[in-house]
């Protein structure tokens, strides 16, 4: 059989599998995350077959305008997390290094760049993009990374430039970003070759707002003692708010999840048996080690009740006006957690410590993510001064675990927990 044929059959297989899954979900009350992701990736991977367009977009980028036009959004970072969680990061990162990319670069970028050339990784690579949408509200890395992919795939690249907000949000910035939202819409129209559907966007905006509110409500349940869920659960349930916010599926999923969590709260069920200590996590998870970490902390009866990472996808709710979604989008996307000054980040951390009554702060100093990690030391100091709680800094990487030193980190966690326990005795 020639290659093209086998590719076609493979895609068809993926498509039919996705359709079958979708059908079976219709009869079930609540599909699981895994099932939803299977359908999502099947649809994405068979986009050529169904004539849908695929856009690769950064995790902080506005996805609603794509969803409204029936474009399938694909998140290389989410894929990066999957690569990390399935412990395939080191191999793909090494491959990127062989291609000339320094080992000091973001491991999401490194693994995605090399994965694209070999269709490797846990799901055999991502579907080819028809367009790239890069919003730099999370970092400067995405700009360079998307340039690399735009050269590789030779597809149009839209850059949504969200100027960094060291202090406040200026009118100049507001005007600039708002204009770019219009340019973004135009870009989509050009790539799709059809007029933009603003009414659909309005509906998608409402759903997105709804999903973000639900996600916040889900996270809020962890304010209860014992916490019905931990940050590790949030890492897992996060995927939909990143990839599918603005769809009915996401809203339904989080409604169900919220109901489940509320039920656990009512019954007094904690996720960590005999929860005694409550901690706050900062930075992206160490994907290949989430399980190990969660067990490690649980063995000390400590629950990571909240984190700055998963809450970033609902952190700007206050700027969104659901009736004027398009207009308020500019501010909401520009003022996200990673695009603000260190002092404002520290304020957010302190608010979370208060809200979730955390006894300590665990910071992942993430070699991959400079904008997230630089400034952590200052945040740590501010938090210690303002709230007097101890903190722990773990140096690691979110995907590439070649340098993860398990025994050393275990010792540090033990020592940190001793301090927390001592404090409790006082």
């Amino acid at each position: 059989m020639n290659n093209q044929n086998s590719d076609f059959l493979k895609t068809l297989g993926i498509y039919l599998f996705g359709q079958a899954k979708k059908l079976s979900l219709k009869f079930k009350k609540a599909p699981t995350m895994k099932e939803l992701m299977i359908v999502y990736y099947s649809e994405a991977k068979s986009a050529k077959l169904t004539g849908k367009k695929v856009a690769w977009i950064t995790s902080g980028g506005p996805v609603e305008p794509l969803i409204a036009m029936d474009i399938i959004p694909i998140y290389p970072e989410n894929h990066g997390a999957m690569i990390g969680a399935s412990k395939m990061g080191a191999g793909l990162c090494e491959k990127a290094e062989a291609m000339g990319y320094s080992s000091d670069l973001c491991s999401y970028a490194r693994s995605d760049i090399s994965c694209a050339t070999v269709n490797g990784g846990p799901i055999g690579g991502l579907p080819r993009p028809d367009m790239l949408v890069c919003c730099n509200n999370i970092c400067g890395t995405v700009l360079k990374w998307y340039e690399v992919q735009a050269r590789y795939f030779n597809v149009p690249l839209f850059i949504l430039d969200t100027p960094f907000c060291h202090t406040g949000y200026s009118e100049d910035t507001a005007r600039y970003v708002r204009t770019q939202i219009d340019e973004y819409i135009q870009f989509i129209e050009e790539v799709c070759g059809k007029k933009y559907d603003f009414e659909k966007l309005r509906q998608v905006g409402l759903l997105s707002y709804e999903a973000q509110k639900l996600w916040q409500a889900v996270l809020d349940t962890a304010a209860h003692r014992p916490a019905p869920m931990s940050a590790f659960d949030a890492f897992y349930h996060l995927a939909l708010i990143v990839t599918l916010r603005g769809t009915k599926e996401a809203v339904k999923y989080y409604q169900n999840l919220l109901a489940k969590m509320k039920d656990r709260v009512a019954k007094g069920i904690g996720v960590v048996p005999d929860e005694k200590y409550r901690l706050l996590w900062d930075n992206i998870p160490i994907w290949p080690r989430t399980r190990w970490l969660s067990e490690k902390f649980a063995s000390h009866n400590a629950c990571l009740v909240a984190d700055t990472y998963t809450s970033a996808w609902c952190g700007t709710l206050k700027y969104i006006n659901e009736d004027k979604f398009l207009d308020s989008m500019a501010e909401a996307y520009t003022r996200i957690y990673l695009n603000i000054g260190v002092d404002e980040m520290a304020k957010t951390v302190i608010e979370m410590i208060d809200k979730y009554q955390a006894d300590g702060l665990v910071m992942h100093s993430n070699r991959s993510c400079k904008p997230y990690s630089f400034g952590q030391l200052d945040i740590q100091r501010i938090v210690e001064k303002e709230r007097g709680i101890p903190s722990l800094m773990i140096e690691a990487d979110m995907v590439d675990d070649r340098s993860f030193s398990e025994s050393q980190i275990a010792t540090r966690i033990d020592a940190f927990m001793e301090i927390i326990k001592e404090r409790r005795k006082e």
Partner: protein
Amino acid sequence: MDKISEFRTIIENPYSYLQKIKDENGKKAIGYVCSYAPEELIYAAGALPVRLFGSDSIIHRADLHLQSYCCSLVRGILEDALSGRLELLDGMIFPHTCDSIQRLSDVWRLNLVKSFHADVVLPVKLTTPSAKSYLVDVLKKFKTDLEQWLNIKITDAELNRAVKTYNAIRSLMTRLYRLRCENPHIISGHDFHTLIRAAMIVERDHFLEELTAITADLEKTAPEKKLTGVKRLVLSGGICNHPDVYDTIENAGGVVTGDDLCTGSRYFEGAIDDRMPPLEAIAARYATRVVCPAKHSGLTSRGDNLVRTVRECGADGVIFMLLKFCDPHAFDYPYLKEMLDREKIPSLLLEMEEQTQAGGQLQTRLETFIQIL
């Protein structure tokens, strides 16, 4: 050349030079960290823009704020600031470039009290109309910030004078680049480097005066007979803070005939159109000059420019000098190298720290590379 020796002393000890300037005329000095700093405005406000380079001291104070995987340039600057070596600066401006500088600004604002701190949050893309008009807004805002701080009004006449001075410096430097390219032995790499560094520190009027004389002198110097066997090289990367590299290259039988460095041709490239309103004109130069990897203007503009530079300089090879942990440059390296490979232009990658000394391994690698050219 003895005119350059004055500059040599200054760049070896920029802070005592600053002290002297301040004692003499009470000028305010403003530090900056990137070639996108709108220096013309600082000059027009009557202050002295001073580019900061990394530190040669051991880093320990900066360790309390920035992890070890932050580039040594940023860590070094912070070290110098925290240890009081930058006390002479009255203010700092941070143009938005990379993630590390972005956070350096935050850390600075929270830990170092200076009378003036400005973030100049430039757009990241430079080509679209909305980015261009935003860029003008940013410059206007910076101008207002300066005016409020100094309690002055920056007039158009002053801005025009700044444009004139900077244009003159840039065009002389461009001429020097051309001269060196035609006749590389006319000036040593070390001296050329000294001029570049001095252009970012020395009072600009004085610098312009000296540079005019130096250029005139060099133009009078008769070209030497074509030396055979000397390999012509282009340096590419961020900031070059390694004057010794030039000596090493020259000792190994090479010579630098062009560059693509932030502290090099990218800084001098492009004139400001003096027929346009000054702020618009300054913005327009940013939009057209050779782009830095932290900014976007087209997908291959840096590569195209590098290949063109190599051709124009008749270079035999390219040396990439990249700072370790510098993301923007590290992301561009593979495609730049690929473009060079396609043109059959050999290249060498040197990953350095600010404190890297020429000599040892670096020297061997340079020598080997030059030999095989």
